[in-house]
């Protein structure tokens, strides 16, 4: 019998298992791959400050509790806005859809929350609603966001995946030093709407607090 033979021949057994388990991935993922990689018209890649904010979002793992995927149901579009489209995520590496809504969806949070709202909320969520079970993220007001890594990420995705960043994005340190003031300037625009003195002081010293980058990112979610 075939299976008895197979069980005595480990090489062929392992090969058979490999073939049988490969089918699904090939058929489900490969055919649609290039289609799903296309951005919707007019999609802009995130700025370096927003990317740094995305990395804060990842570092503090906001996706433990927040999704970024609005499903096509009336109850969801009423609550969060238009349902999500595949092409909107075309520059998101990694995707940050999440799998659990302990808190609300954030895919279009930039449409209905403002910088000062986020500032208050991240400092003390209970000040917005005392029933909130979200922890405060006060350390984001003093930790420095890693904007250099964010720049390296932008350059990497530009070179590897043709994400449309401008010609000034180059792999050299000099190019980064030239771009840096632009990031600080973006950060100052965000901080202008904030009241925390420490944040302003850090920015004056040329350091971007994590909270500023994070808010820049959250505001870009539209």
């Amino acid at each position, binding site marked *: 019998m075939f299976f008895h033979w197979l069980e005595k021949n480990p090489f062929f057994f392992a090969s058979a298992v490999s073939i049988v388990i490969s089918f699904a991935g090939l058929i489900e993922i490969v055919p649609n791959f290039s289609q799903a990689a296309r951005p919707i018209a007019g999609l802009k890649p995130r700025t370096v400050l927003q990317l740094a904010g995305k990395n804060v979002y990842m570092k503090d793992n906001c996706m433990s509790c927040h999704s970024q995927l609005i499903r096509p149901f009336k109850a969801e579009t009423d609550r969060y806005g238009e349902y999500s*489209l595949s092409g909107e995520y075309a520059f998101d590496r990694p995707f940050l859809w999440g799998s659990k809504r302990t808190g609300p969806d954030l895919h279009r949070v930039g449409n209905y929350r403002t910088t000062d709202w986020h500032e208050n909320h991240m400092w003390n969520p209970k000040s917005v609603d005392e029933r909130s079970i979200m922890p405060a993220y006060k350390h984001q007001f003093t930790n420095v966001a890693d904007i250099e890594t*964010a720049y390296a*990420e932008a350059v990497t995705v530009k070179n*590897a*995946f043709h994400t449309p960043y401008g010609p000034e994005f180059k792999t050299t340190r000099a190019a980064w030093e030239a771009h840096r003031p632009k990031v600080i300037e973006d950060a100052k625009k965000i901080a202008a709407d904030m009241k925390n003195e420490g944040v302003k002081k850090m920015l004056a010293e040329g350091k971007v607090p994590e909270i500023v980058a994070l808010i820049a990112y959250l505001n870009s979610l539209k």
Partner: protein
Amino acid sequence: MQSNATLEYDYSLAKKFTFLTILFGILGMLVGTLIAAQLAFPELNYLLGEYGTFSRLRPVHTNTVIFGFTVSGIFATWFYFGQRVLKVSMAESKFLMVVGNIQFWLYFIGALLATISLIFGVTASKEYAQYEWPFDIVVVLVWVLWGINIMGLIGIRREKALYISVWYYLACFLGIAMLYLFNNMAIPTYFVTEGLGNPLHAVSMYAGTNDALVQWWYGHNAVAFGFTVPIVGMIYYFLPKESGQAIYSYKLSLLSFWGLMFVYLWAGSHHLLWSTVPDWMQTMGSAFSVVLILPSWGSAINMLLTMKGEWNQLTDNPLIKFMVLASTFYMLSTIEGPIQAIKSVNAIAHFTDWIPGHVHDGVLGWVVFMIMAAIFHMAPRMFKREIYSKKLMESQFWLQTTAVVLYFTSMWIAGITQGMMWRAVDEYGNLMYSFIDTVAVLHPYYMIRALSGVMYLTGFLMFAYNIFKTMTAGKELTAEPQFRTPMA
């Protein structure tokens, strides 16, 4: 060499990995209990400053129980029964012993460092694949070393036919290798620029919808090949060994194994129902999830029928009780999953606490129970001593069973309540509840879940104590017990 004499098996590696299983089990469940409590009592988020929030600790919990506890358990049982079913001792090959020891230390140190990196927020953010690229490389190395050990032991085996458990462990090795490699493809940004930024940072090779598809092809099947395949392999070895009963049906084993191999991987896209992946993929994931009941229940029924005519053992051997309950929870979990994968049910269940509820009746009831049963069976044979206390085993069993029931019932209610509240509209078609209303209503269920965590953790500590006392104070055995594990 010694074909007639009984073989002396070398359990040194099995013992080492058993210790790690218990260590990572305690750590992972401790963090799990803490984060469960944080949802009920948010003040607990501030115990460790920025390193102690729910968001930071959740991946620590999941990765420690998956890559720490479960994988150690898989390694420990492999280094125990691999030799026995292949009829060859590890001690016969110096090479394999060295490889095994390198695997152990690399794994132990790697797992500790990776856990610390997660606490510091170094993360790739993809669920159960959070480790950044240097740790991914360690994982791959450990896995390759384990592969060398499996293949090596198979290469020098005396028993020509591979036993069912070996099929499952081989599949575990191959499946995880394939999934882990493809999902963790990333470019380290530091090395493709002029040394800019953080050397640990990498950017995923896939974007958006594609990234989601690859991730859940991985995420779902890491469960398949980590939490299902090897655990089924375990029960195929330990249940017949403990009960003295032959496996009920070879044909059913065959059908279940090849069925599981083929069907499981298709089901990954049920994690993406109503998302932006194409509809046909969602439907495919949904349909194959329902088909998946067949091979899953095939194995479970095969196990239960193995006990045919011997159900009396259930009353006087707590080890049989652990394993029978494990296969029962396996059945519960594998019928619940397909139900959640039906699109209309998923519309309510997705994003709610019903999902962690489903995960935990599977892992607490099935995976952990089976691994503990395996260790209870192995301990007297590895340490040549009786199990220290049968009474303690009995109380542990009931404490943990109650904990699992509390966990999934509270999360079922919480999940369905919240799912219904999110979509509830008043007579004019306006949403009835603000989001925070649907959070506040969950408080009692979060308290029940935290309580169940404390109970389950206590049970696991009783288990650890029992094994520790078995090693140090159990009655010494003169001969290896044949079937039933001796216990005081």
